[in-house]
């Protein structure tokens, strides 16, 4: 197999664009949320300041090897997820490293960062971190289920697991999007999406005062900086998957920006409206509302 070395700079370019987009997008979203509360909210460049500050922190502590490595795992998970999925449809430049694997790779690579983060947090020895992980893992078992069902449904629908092929099948007008050809699957997947965005009503994992922000409670300085970077990349990367599977992908960057923003907004809308669920409540909620949709979509596809 001949490896195209140009993939590397192109991928780094994608990464660069997405990081910056993510930084600004999250700030923008925060501003929108602030406006809902009639505040001005943070400045649009606030994330950069926070990030630089974290990198500029002079001291840091470490609880051990896994604690040290966790942010690396976390960010590797985010970057990997981004790079294993083609960002822009039809562009060989921005198809990234998707030659390494298909949709399944992307779906399972999500857990890479989660697992690493959980391990690091646990090594800090802080009970709150462990409690947070316990909640997060508990919730993810059922919140991922509708997504898995939707993906299965989509793969059945298009008879492929290749992301590129799935996007290709949705080209030629928005009526070909999975959103319209398989609405149940999309509905299920979007509910799962809510669960994975760590926003209300599914953010009891972080519970800022009860278990001060849960798993990352001991993280600071450059660790935190890596995680902040990830926080910019990871939701985008995830949304890219959703976009490719359900919303026809993006043929160019403006469409990409728009679609990602809109999809992101779904979770924001829900988040600002609903209060928080307890873990067992959210588990039941997913089982009762989201999973049947997924099952229906499988049966009907």
């Amino acid at each position, binding site marked *: 197999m001949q490896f195209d070395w140009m993939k590397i700079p192109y991928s780094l370019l994608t990464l660069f664009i997405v990081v910056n987009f993510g930084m600004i997008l999250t700030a923008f979203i925060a501003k929108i949320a602030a406006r809902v509360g009639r505040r*001005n909210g943070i400045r649009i460049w*606030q994330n950069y300041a926070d990030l*630089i500050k974290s990198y500029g922190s002079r*001291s840091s502590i470490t609880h051990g090897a896994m604690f040290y490595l966790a942010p690396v795992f976390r960010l590797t998970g985010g970057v990997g997820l981004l790079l294993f999925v083609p960002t822009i449809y039809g562009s060989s430049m921005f198809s990234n490293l998707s030659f390494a694997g298909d949709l399944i790779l992307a779906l399972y690579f999500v857990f890479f960062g989660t697992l690493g983060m959980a391990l690091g947090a646990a090594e800090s020895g802080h009970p709150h971190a462990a409690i947070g992980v316990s909640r997060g893992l508990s919730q993810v078992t059922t919140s991922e289920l509708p997504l898995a069902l939707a993906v299965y449904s989509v793969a059945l629908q298009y008879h492929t697991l290749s992301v590129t092929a799935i996007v290709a099948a949705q080209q030629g007008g928005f009526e070909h999007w999975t959103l319209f050809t398989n609405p149940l699957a999309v509905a299920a997947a979007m509910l799962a999406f809510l669960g994975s965005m760590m926003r209300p009503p599914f953010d009891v994992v972080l519970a800022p005062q009860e278990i001060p922000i849960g798993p990352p409670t001991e*993280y600071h300085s450059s660790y935190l900086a890596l995680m902040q970077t990830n926080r910019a990349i990871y939701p985008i990367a995830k949304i890219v998957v959703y976009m490719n599977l359900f919303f026809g992908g993006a043929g160019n960057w403006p469409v990409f920006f728009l679609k990602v923003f809109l999809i992101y907004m779904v979770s924001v809308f829900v988040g600002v409206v609903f209060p928080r669920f307890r873990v067992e409540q959210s588990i039941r909620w997913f089982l009762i509302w989201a999973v049947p949709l997924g099952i229906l979509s499988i049966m009907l596809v």
Partner: protein
Amino acid sequence: MKEELLKRTVKGPDGVEFEVEPLRDYYCEAAPTVMHGAYIKIVEDLFNWARAESLWILGFGTGCGAIEMRPLMTPRFDAYRYGIQWRPTPRQANLLVISGYLSVKTLKRAIRAYEQMQNPKYVVGLGSCTINGGMYWDSYNTIKRLDQYLPVDIYIAGCMPRPEALLAGFEDLKKLIRTGQAEGANQYAERFDWYKTNQKQVIHDWDMPEYNW
């Protein structure tokens, strides 16, 4: 000394007995060191700018002044637009606001919280009580001068200061930071013994390591 910090003899699973000394075994014994900024000035300036524009306050209300902190989050004052936000964990905060009088009992917690924050870190004394004890100047139970115990970067006078005053104070703090004058953490490390002596003079049930990493 609290019982759980006393030396104890335990028996391992292989039946061998050995001693556990909690303060040595469970806590890091290292003393804080002075941490210098980046070697290249422009980088350090950039960092100082970022530090000033990203003030993360530890959500720790020590006295009655805490009540004046809350309005800062409201739409009326909206401190977020100045890059100020609250963090629940000292690890991630770089600003400790001592909000009003500080009882001796709370001082211990404040010291611990302060020491667990990372360099660079800033202390703001809020209200008169932190300056000279205020109306509690003769109380047996409060400390009178905060800067004998923690390196205070800036005081905001008043009893209590209004939120506007706080915002003004934070702006002043930002200026200090930007100019590289807010080096309280290094000061604390340099005069570590002095601070500790002062602290131990008022805290009689000292039950923690010298420095809480």
